[in-house]
Structures are given as C-alpha cells and as structure tokens.
C-alpha cells in the first residue's frame, strides 16, 4: 500500500514512511542513514548541475532534492526515488569492480563513446525491480522531467522511455509529438523496444545483458563521440575509482566478458548492430580509452595512477621479492610532551614530566610523550645512492600510451635499489632542461617520476653529470639510452664530463640499446678501461627489462 502524499508534504514523518517502504521494495537491511535534503553539496557524487537524488557514500545517506522533486510534480514518487537509490546501493551495480569492468567492455565495443551508457543500463535493471510495484511513481518522475525540459527527448531517451512503456504496459511516457518522427527516423523502433524488453530481462548473465544492451542502444546514438545526455535519477551510480579500473585492466571480469562476447557473436548481435569487436592487446591502450573521456581536471592524475599500477606489475614480474622482512626499529627516542586525552594509551603517560610540568595537577592533567625509532645511520645503509639517467627522446613511445622498455628498465633498477634500502635520484632527459627528482626512497614516488616523458631530441645532460658526480662521489650511476648517447659524446667536453663522472662514481653503467657494440666500443674507448665503468649492450627493446634485472642482481644484489 502506498502512502498518500498531500501537496505540501515534506514532513519528516512522510519521508520516514517513504524510506521504510523503499527499503521494503528490496527486502533488505542496509546501513544507510534516512534521507536528507540536498543542500548543493556532494558534487563528487554527481556529474550534472542539479541532482534529483544520490547516495553520499561518505555519510552513507540518501540525499534527495525535494524542491526539484516538487517542481517536477513527482513528490508522491518519493518512495520510488528512494527505492531506486537503494537499488543502486544494494544490487546494481553489484560491485564497483563490475561497474568498472563494464565501462572497459563498453569502450571496447563502442570506441570513442563520449559519455558512458552504464548509468542507463543500471537504471534499467533497478527500475525493473522497483517498477514491479511502483511503475506509476517512476513514470511520474520521467514525465515530470520531460515537462521541466520543454517536453523534448532525444532519440536515445525516447527509446529508453519506450522500453519502460513496454515493460510496464503504459503509453504515457514517450512524448506524443515524437512518436511519428521516431518511426520515420528509426523504422519499427517500438518493435525493437518490445523485443529488447522481452529478451534483455531474461538473459542469464549481466555481461551478456550489457552486450545486448549496447547492441540495441547503439542504434539511437548517431554519433558516439558526441554523446551527451541527461536523465532523471541518472549520474547517481557510485563511481568506480582507480583501483576498480585497475582491476578491470588486470582482467577482473574479463573471462565473463569474453564468454558474453562469444555468445553475442554466435547470436549475431555484434555484426548486426555495428559494435566493434576488437580486443585491446596492450593494457595501456585500455587505460587510454577509459581515461581519455574523463573530465580534464582529473584525467591526468587518474591516468598516471593507472599507468603507474600497470608498470608496477611489470616491475614485480622482474624484481625478486626479498625473502625476509626487516623488523621495524624499536621506538627509543622521546618526543615532546603533549596533553594526554581520554582514549589515549595510558602507557604513554610520562608521570615524571607531568609532575614537573603540572605539580599537584599532574593526576588530573597528565602529559604523554611518544617514542619514535631512531633514523637509520647512513653507515647501516647497505647500498650506495643510485642515480638513474633516463633518455625519453622521441625515439621511444610515451610510457603512458605504450610500453616504454627503457622506462621499465629504469623502474626495475630503482625498485631493486629501494627494496635494498637504497636511495634513488632520477634524471629524465630529452633535449633542453632535464627533469631531476629529489632523493627518493619510495618505490611509488620513483615509479611515477620515471613515467615522465619529453619526446623531443636527445641531449644527454653532461654538465649535470659532472655536478652530481662532484656532489655525490660515491653514487652508482646508470645511463639508459640508445645509439643517440654515442652521438651525444661528440658534444664539446662530453667525454671529459663522462670520464669525470666515471672517476667520481662507485660504478657507472651505460645501458644502451644498440644493434652491435663495435661503434660503442670505439666511442667509449677512453672509459672502457676503467674498472668503474660498464657497458651493457641491449640488442632489442624487448630485452631491456631482463637486462635491467640481471644488472640489478649483479651490481645491487637485488
């Protein structure tokens, strides 16, 4: 039984009753707070300018835009709106990992799609359940949305509404004025919607449902790369984060997607609809696809995070894990006195300090003093400092777009050194001023720094080598480049700087991608005799990572 909603009902009792009914739709207990009014915040959960409702995952509350609901004349649909939001929370998408996997699949089937259709997809699933008992309420929301937007709907939205008409046996959702133009533009579109309803909801697997959904909806998206749409109760699906997408890139849900595609091929859905059936062989291509349509203010950071995770996996394939874990040092160094508060560890109270500072009040205002472990002595450091000079000229690809073997080699060396408690400084160069990092002892920081890319000419920074060699005479230095490095040696004072660098280093290794080493031996003749210099010739780019691993094992003991 639904609750009667008088025109002015915005009272807490009405909202609470709707909330109870909405929970009953899903017959499930959820840890969500009762709905609160939208106050203009929560933009992280909402892409568009004015949300109707969404779940704030920070406060775990459903937020409802009551004035908008009233403006749409759908205040009596509050229960259905709340049930819709709960549906996204408890059932569709089942996990954010699934949402990410479907978006990856979507970009594979419809490359260049500007706005994801997954929101429509999950709404269709949620509304089928909610609409079993509350189709009239949901219909009121859609009608109110259309009236608010001057009654016009895009072909995509018309088709979407036709699906609900077929599902709920209604005929009051698609604007009457658009039925004939739709038939003219998309012959038998109603038959299409009917078949969709009668097939889509009977499919046994969500991946198969999604491929079927894409195959049918693509017809109503004339230009995928320009698609932009708004729907009521859209944009309210929790967004997958970088870890979710990383899982999808790694292949989570990949087998289900492949199975679904195989069945879709057998049923003729792919060919008939015009979907693209081309698998990305390189995970970096997948990353590029899924990040290139993100808002520009978050795109770079999101891409960097995913690319970094991808390279970490590659590094982990090569770098041996250390068998033992060094226990953390004992905290022995006292810090300053601070107020002890209820809830703090009583063992942290420094009674002597408290009495000295507070006298008789020490018992009521005790002070605590934390202990910290001592900084490790430089003498305990097992590895010298490591400097890596990485060539990122245009002869190698941008590591964010395609696998850059030299970048990977640099990351392997840096990870090997850091895992042996070494410190790493990286110099990423092309032409012009090189990028120089601080001394880094975090693998993640080093890995991200080494993803920098210039893509210009090649100009090895010999003056910098000379300066750093002077500053840190005991460091190990690795130069990762190709035959361009040999050309660079012809620059004025280049060989002098290299010789000085060799003499001032514990070891200087030139790791060069070369077809043969004859020319290298000739050009590097002045330093080849030094016991502090090593030339490592890598015959092919695909051998760079293995060579870096062998090198790390040989000279860093990793």
């Amino acid at each position, binding site marked *: 039984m639904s609750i009667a909603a008088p025109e002015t009902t915005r009272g807490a009792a009405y909202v609470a009753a709707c909330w109870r009914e909405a929970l009953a739709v899903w017959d499930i207990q959820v840890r969500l707070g009762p709905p609160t009014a939208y106050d203009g915040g929560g933009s992280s959960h909402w892409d568009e300018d004015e949300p109707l409702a969404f779940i704030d995952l920070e406060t775990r509350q459903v937020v409802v835009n009551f004035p908008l609901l009233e403006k749409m004349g759908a205040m009596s649909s509050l229960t259905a709106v709340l049930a819709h939001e709960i549906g996204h929370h408890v059932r569709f998408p089942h996990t954010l990992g699934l949402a990410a996997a479907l978006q990856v699949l979507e970009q594979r089937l419809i*490359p260049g799609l500007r706005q994801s259709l997954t929101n429509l997809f999950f709404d269709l699933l949620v509304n089928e359940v909610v609409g079993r008992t509350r189709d009239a309420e949901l219909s009121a929301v859609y009608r109110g949305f259309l009236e608010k937007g001057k009654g016009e709907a895009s072909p995509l939205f018309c088709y979407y509404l036709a699906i609900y008409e077929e599902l709920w046996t209604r005929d009051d959702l698609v604007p009457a004025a658009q039925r004939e133009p739709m038939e003219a533009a*998309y012959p*038998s*579109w109603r*038959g*299409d919607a*009917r078949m969709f309803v009668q097939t889509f909801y009977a499919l046994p697997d969500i991946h198969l449902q999604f491929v079927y959904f894409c195959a049918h909806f693509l017809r109503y998206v004339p230009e995928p790369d320009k698609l932009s749409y708004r729907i009521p109760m859209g944009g309210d699906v929790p967004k997958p984060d970088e870890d979710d997408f990383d899982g999808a890139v790694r292949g989570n849900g990949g087998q289900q997607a492949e199975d679904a595609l195989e069945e879709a091929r057998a049923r003729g859905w792919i060919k008939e609809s015009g979907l693209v059936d081309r698998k990305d062989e*390189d995970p970096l291509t997948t990353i590029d696809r899924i990040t290139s349509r993100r808002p520009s203010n978050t795109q770079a950071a999101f891409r960097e995070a995913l690319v970094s995770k991808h390279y970490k996996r590659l590094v982990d394939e090569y770098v041996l894990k250390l068998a033992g874990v060094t226990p953390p040092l004992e905290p022995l160094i006292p810090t300053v006195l601070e107020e002890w508060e209820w809830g703090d560890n009583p063992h942290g109270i420094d009674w002597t300090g408290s009495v000295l500072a507070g006298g008789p009040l020490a018992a009521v205002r005790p002070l605590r003093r934390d202990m910290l472990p001592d900084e490790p002595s430089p003498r305990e450091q097992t590895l010298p400092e490591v400097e890596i000079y990485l060539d990122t000229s245009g002869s190698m690809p941008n590591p964010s777009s395609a696998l850059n073997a030299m970048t990977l080699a640099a990351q392997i060396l840096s990870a090997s050194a850091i895992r042996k408690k070494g410190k790493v400084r990286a110099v990423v160069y092309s032409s012009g001023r090189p990028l120089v990092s601080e001394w880094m002892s975090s693998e993640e920081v080093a890995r991200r720094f080494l993803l920098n890319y210039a893509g210009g000419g090649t100009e090895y920074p010999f003056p910098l080598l000379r300066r750093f060699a002077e500053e840190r005479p005991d460091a190990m230095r690795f130069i990762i480049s190709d035959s361009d490095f040999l050309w660079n040696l012809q620059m004025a004072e280049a060989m002098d700087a290299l010789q000085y660098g060799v003499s001032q280093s514990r070891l200087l290794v030139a790791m060069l991608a070369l077809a043969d080493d004859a020319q290298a031996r000739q050009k590097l003749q002045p330093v080849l005799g030094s016991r502090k210099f090593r030339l490592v010739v890598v015959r092919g780019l695909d051998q760079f990572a293995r060579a870096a691993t062998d090198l790390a094992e040989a000279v860093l003991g990793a």
Partner: protein
Amino acid sequence: MSFDLGRIRDEAAAAPLASPYPQELSIAVVNDTFRLARLVPPDGKQWKGLLASAKQTLMLEQLGMLAHLLTVTSLRDETVKALGADIDVKRALEGFFASVAPLTAEMIRANAFRQEEFLRKWIATVGGQVAGEAPEESQKRLEQLDYRKTLAEYDRAEKARQGEATRRAKMLKEAADREAAARGWRE
C-alpha cells in the same frame, strides 16, 4: 473460470524442469487433463496427425513444456474447471500449437515473458480468464506478448538497423583509428 497466473508462475518457478518430458508421457499428461474434464482426448492417430502437421521439433518441445506445467502447477486443475463440454479438443490443440509455434522449450522455461505468453495462450485456448483482469486487458497483454508479432516488428527494425549499422561501423572504425593515431608511435 479464472486462472491465478501469478500463482501458476510461482509454482512453475518452484519446480524447475530437470529433463525434457518424453513424447508419450507428454501426450498422456495432456490426455489425462482432458479426461478429467470428461472430454475425449485425441487418439493415437489424431496425435500423430497433429504432430506431423507443423514444425514437429518445436511442437514436441512445446508439448513437453505444456505437460510439465500441467503436472507441477495448478494449471491442470484450473484447466479441468475451465474446459467446456462443447470444446473441439483436436481443433483446440491445433489452434494452441499454431499460436505458440515460434516458442522453444528454453524460451518458455527461462524467459518470463515467453512463459507468460505460453500460459495466457493456453488459458485462452481452454476458454479461461486471467484472475483480476478484464477480458480486454488480457487481450491487450496477449497482443503485447505475441512473440510472432514482436518478431515480425523486430525483423523490420533489424532490416533498418543493418543499413544504419554499416554507416555506424564505418564511423566507429574512424573514431578508433583517430584514437590510435592520437596515441602516436607504439612499439
């Protein structure tokens, strides 16, 4: 006589089909239903003619599903109550199998819409009504569910889509190529 469609479907969902019914068993179940209504079922010769008259493979699947639903749900009891003495059993069966001709056993088993259509067409065949619905509502729903009609409409949509798909595939390929070009040089 009113058939509680919701209850019948719940009962069917609670007793999933483990294996297909053999032809003889299916015929026996359907014949028993008519006998319970004090009607003479088709004899062996008539059944043979019936099964030979249409797409035999699908009709056997439909016959098996009908027997299953009559066995595990209250459909049989309601059917017995609904069947009138004046019904021409052979003609009724011919009409029923013709109306559900495109439905496979898998569709009836796994697709809620197809199962509803199958049941509604059986109810209409035996002269029953769906509980809680006016006859016009039942008729409208039946038209909406008619798979043959949906298929015909969909075929039209498919033909139109094929032309559109060629155009779109070209556009998607161009978009993919543009993307690849934008990514630049690769190994």
